[in-house]
């Protein structure tokens, strides 16, 4: 484990070919610095999902180097994968909440999974729920909440273990435009508190509205990396 200077995420000449021969990533290099807010955009099949899998250690690069919060995911040992994942918070489009657990228990469950005590959970969870505006929903079940609220719970869950970086995979995909905007505001607020944010999305309006760094991927390559508005062809979901 070697700290890469001033980059929390670094991909260097990364190529990824699946076992069935599909070449999903073709020589990508990029660096994301601590505290940055980055949109990762691109059409379906462009390689965005593979990049997320590379960052979370679900797959290893075929060629090149991936570093996440100081961990190199190439040849990473089985023991180090959980340690690397503890530095990340992941938000999914379909929320992935456990329906039979309350909001509080959904959060306590992931704290417990990394070794926190019930006491630590009691101290941390109310703070995080307040941050996402759900302090009065602690004892509700996910199916009693709206889509926007469920995604806020998912954000709280990603935040609760205090990760260095949050990766959000199409977090607004199941929300209406108004809820999407609220949610993105929340992610920006969390980013301003110091957490690095990587948001995968295909919503051009949202990307343009926030004026953050935008990395566009197409056919497994970075075709644009600039700050401000989305530049390039039309983005398809």
């Amino acid at each position: 484990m070697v700290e890469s200077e001033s980059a929390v995420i670094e991909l260097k000449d990364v190529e990824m070919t699946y076992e069935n021969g599909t070449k999903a990533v073709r020589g990508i290099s990029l660096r994301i610095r601590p505290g940055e807010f980055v949109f990762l955009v691109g059409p379906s099949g462009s390689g965005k999902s593979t990049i997320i899998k590379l960052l979370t250690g679900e797959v290893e690069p075929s060629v090149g180097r991936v570093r996440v919060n100081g961990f190199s995911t190439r040849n990473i040992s089985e023991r180090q994968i959980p340690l690397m994942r503890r530095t990340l918070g992941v938000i999914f489009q379909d929320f992935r909440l456990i329906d039979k657990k309350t909001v509080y228990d959904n959060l306590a469950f992931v704290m417990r999974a990394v070794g926190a005590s019930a006491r630590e959970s009691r101290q941390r969870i109310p703070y995080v729920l307040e941050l996402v505006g759900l302090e009065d929903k602690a004892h509700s079940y996910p199916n009693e909440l709206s889509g926007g609220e469920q995604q806020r719970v998912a954000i709280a869950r990603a935040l609760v273990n205090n990760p260095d970086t949050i990766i959000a995979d199409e977090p607004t995909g199941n929300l209406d435009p108004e809820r999407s905007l609220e949610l993105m505001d929340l992610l920006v607020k969390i980013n301003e508190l110091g957490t690095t944010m990587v948001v995968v999305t295909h919503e051009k309006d949202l990307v343009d509205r926030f004026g953050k760094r935008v990395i566009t991927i197409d056919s497994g390559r970075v075709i644009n990396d600039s700050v401000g508005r989305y530049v390039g062809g039309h983005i398809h979901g």
Partner: protein
Amino acid sequence: MGKHNFGYFVHEGLSNMFSHGFMSFAAIGITVACLLIMGTFSLVAVNANALLADLEQENEILAFIEEDCTDQQIKALEKTLGAVPNVTSVTFISREEAMEKFLEDYPDEEYFKDLDPEILRDRFSLKIDDLELISQTVEQVRNTQGIGGINAYEDVAGGFITVRNVASVVCIALIAILFIVSLFIISNTIRLTTFDRREEIAIMRMVGATNGFIRWPFVYEGFLLGLLGSTIAFFLQWMLYEAVSKGVSTNDALQLIDVVPFQQLWKPVALTFGCAGILIGVGGSLSAIRKYLQV
């Protein structure tokens, strides 16, 4: 394992067990059935062995002494035979004693009463330790100077040994098959639990839970299923054994069979059932959870 995690693992294991009540019931039922069948065959084998050991005790070789041996030579011969490997005891029987025994066996045959003991020979009754070595022992005794002949039921001994060996092989094969069946069923039961919780497992992995943390609740579930199954099986086995023992002892045709009392067997039975049940439970759960821990 953190100190505050132990209670959590046990709680999760227990709640898994109750939330899949029917499958848990099925898994315990199958474990009980398999252990009972394994136990019954093993106990039959134990009793068959005990019976054979008794027969070994009763199995005697008669070694006839040559007519021209003096009393001193007979005494020396007794010592020589006592030193033959596998011979546990040597008893001298005079021709008069042999005749008395013969007449005792045929009390109603009047015409035997006038027989002269001189028609019989003095002999030694030899007891042996291991029936499987009877052929070698008989050969050594036959070659001893002063022994004029031998009477040994080698074929009968061979038959006993064959019965015991076949019983042992059948017993071991059945135990192995039933063990694998139990392991498979418990594994499938826990696989259903894990399938039901695959989303939780995926989230735990994504937030950085270690494989051990994910695995332990399932291991406890398997442990509890196995332990419960073996406890129930033990008491059922006890009841069954006592019922069969009672049946054997009151049956006129089976009175010659001495059933080993359960009081002599309960400790090894409890230990074996406990270990087998826990092994089946824990082994089954480890096999079920394995595929969810690979990425």
